[in-house]
């Protein structure tokens, strides 16, 4: 237990310089722009006063280090600037949109793991069957399916042809009011407040985008679970285990315990991919999350929000990898403190 606290503590401390470096990267992103970033950040309709305001808040006449310190301070206090497109503080825009994205991403990870791991393990144990071959072929698709295209196909089939799914216009059906704000994620909020009409509407609307993400990103989990379990079933320690007369179940438990750590790693990677995939899928389903916000900002050259979204996604990724490392540590005693 003490070892674990030391490890987790060290790992969390290690995340601090990582986050700082991330902020440096984001800070320099805006300096990729040709010309004076002031005009870019303030937007095309900015008044002279607004430009002056932005200029002094950026401190462009000061040394780079001072500018960065200012940027860091503003970021830590939640001041990401103002979006000229929505005329709102970026922080507010993000607060409204982040829960929708998290709902989608976390939902997709959970479903992928719940289906991918048992399925992968099952085909690894019963090697050579038809299921094994199907899983192998599906696993090959990992990383090569265009998520936005799969989303469109699902819409074509389930909305247009079969009319099972609601139209792809957001998180709720037309005319359904959003639930009371608790977490910001509609399904969770509706369930918490017992608003079942909204709950079913939200659940119906999330099926297609969620399915898109799962179809495209689950193969990675599936493939890893399968190959890792296969490798462990063939591992040399299994020979000694079998020769010692351990029961079939104990043998499977031995293999499974050893096969889990790589699956944890890949789950983290899937999370990372999903953030990118969510951008495209949100765009198709008019989801109104952070990804769609990023796209709209890029198209309209609204730079302050882009900077903020990139930063938040990187922070999220860093946290995910932090959790992965800690879980991995709990699963594998060979990791040193």
């Amino acid at each position: 237990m003490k070892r674990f606290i030391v490890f987790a503590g060290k790992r969390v401390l290690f995340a601090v310089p990582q986050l700082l470096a991330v902020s440096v990267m984001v800070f320099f992103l805006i300096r990729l722009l040709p010309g004076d970033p002031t005009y870019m950040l303030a937007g095309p309709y900015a008044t002279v006063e607004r430009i002056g305001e932005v200029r002094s808040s950026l401190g462009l006449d000061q040394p780079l280090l001072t500018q960065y310190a200012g940027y860091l301070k503003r970021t830590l206090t939640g001041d990401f600037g103002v979006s000229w497109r929505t005329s709102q503080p970026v922080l507010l825009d993000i607060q409204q949109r982040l829960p929708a994205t998290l709902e989608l991403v976390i939902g997709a990870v959970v479903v992928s793991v719940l289906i991918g791991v048992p399925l992968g393990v099952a085909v690894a144990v019963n090697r050579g069957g038809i299921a094994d071959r199907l899983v192998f072929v599906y696993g090959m698709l990992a990383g090569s399916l265009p998520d936005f295209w799969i989303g469109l196909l699902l819409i074509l089939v389930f909305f247009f042809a079969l009319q099972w799914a609601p139209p792809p216009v957001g998180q709720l059906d037309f005319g359904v009011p959003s639930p009371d704000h608790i977490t910001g994620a509609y399904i969770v909020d509706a369930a918490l407040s017992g608003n079942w009409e909204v709950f079913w509407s939200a659940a119906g609307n999330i099926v297609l985008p969620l399915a898109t993400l799962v179809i495209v990103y689950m193969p990675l989990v599936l493939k890893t679970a399968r190959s890792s379990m296969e490798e462990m079933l063939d591992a040399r320690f299994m020979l000694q285990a079998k020769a010692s007369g351990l029961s079939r179940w104990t043998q499977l438990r031995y293999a499974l315990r050893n096969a889990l750590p790589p699956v944890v790693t890949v789950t983290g990677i899937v999370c990372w991919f999903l953030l990118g995939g969510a951008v495209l899928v949100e765009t198709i389903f008019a989801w109104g999350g952070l990804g769609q916000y990023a796209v709209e900002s890029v198209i309209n050259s609204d730079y302050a929000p882009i900077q903020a979204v990139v930063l938040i996604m990187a922070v999220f990724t860093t946290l995910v990898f932090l959790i992965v490392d800690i879980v991995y540590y709990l699963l594998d005693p060979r990791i040193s403190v």
Partner: protein
Amino acid sequence: MIFGFVVIAVNLALALIGPLIAPFPVQAPVGASLTPPNATHWFGTDVSGMDIFSRVLAAPRVDLTIALVSTAVAFACGVALGVLSGFFAEGTAIARFFSGAIMRAADIFQAFPLFVFALALVGFSGPSTRNVIMALAFLNIPFFLRLTRGAVLQVRSRTFVEAAICAGNSKLRAAFVHVMPNSIAPALVHFSTTIGFSILLTAGLSFVGAGVPPPTPELGLMIKVGAQNMMTGQWWTALMPGLVLAVTVLAFSVFGDNLRVFLDPTSRR
């Protein structure tokens, strides 16, 4: 193997001569809007009446060029950095520091979700073919770096590296003459996969409107244009370009898989 090889060969051929053999002009309306597939327009026409089949034939010139160039740049930078950071992972304090610094930098770049990072880079530098290439190259460097470094760390602990030093090689010469050729296989395999993946990213960027500008014949753009019609039942508009995209990307990744088996030194011994 054959599947991957054929699709890639067709792609390369189309990149060279695609626009020339297209039956219709690729950037102009040539028929009625939204004609379903028929004998004249094999894949139908899109909303502005452009022939989808002709545009699909012309697309590899854009998509493949972007993917090839960006991957080649990423490969060259990634492998060189990987060899240096791997080979000097142990050594003098300065060598260790730089080796570590390269790795930390790669860590930081990879904290950004790929597509979002690409979107931001292109967003900040402006949507153009050149900027898409630069963004993709930049994004892919860490992958080649890690793969090569991992291989180098294994190879450098093998005795033939010490033996090479004994034979009078300088460290740098040993790193590039003896270690690099023996640790390049993972990066080579990844080269193929990365091309496929870059095509996917290029298409994704265009799909959201942050890639190459319309009406360039590019798969992502075509799917974007077709997306609206897809919801009202004109399935051919986005289905065909998407299918071509999926098959192409898959071909490059299957080819990469086969390449790995082929290059695996243990299978050759």
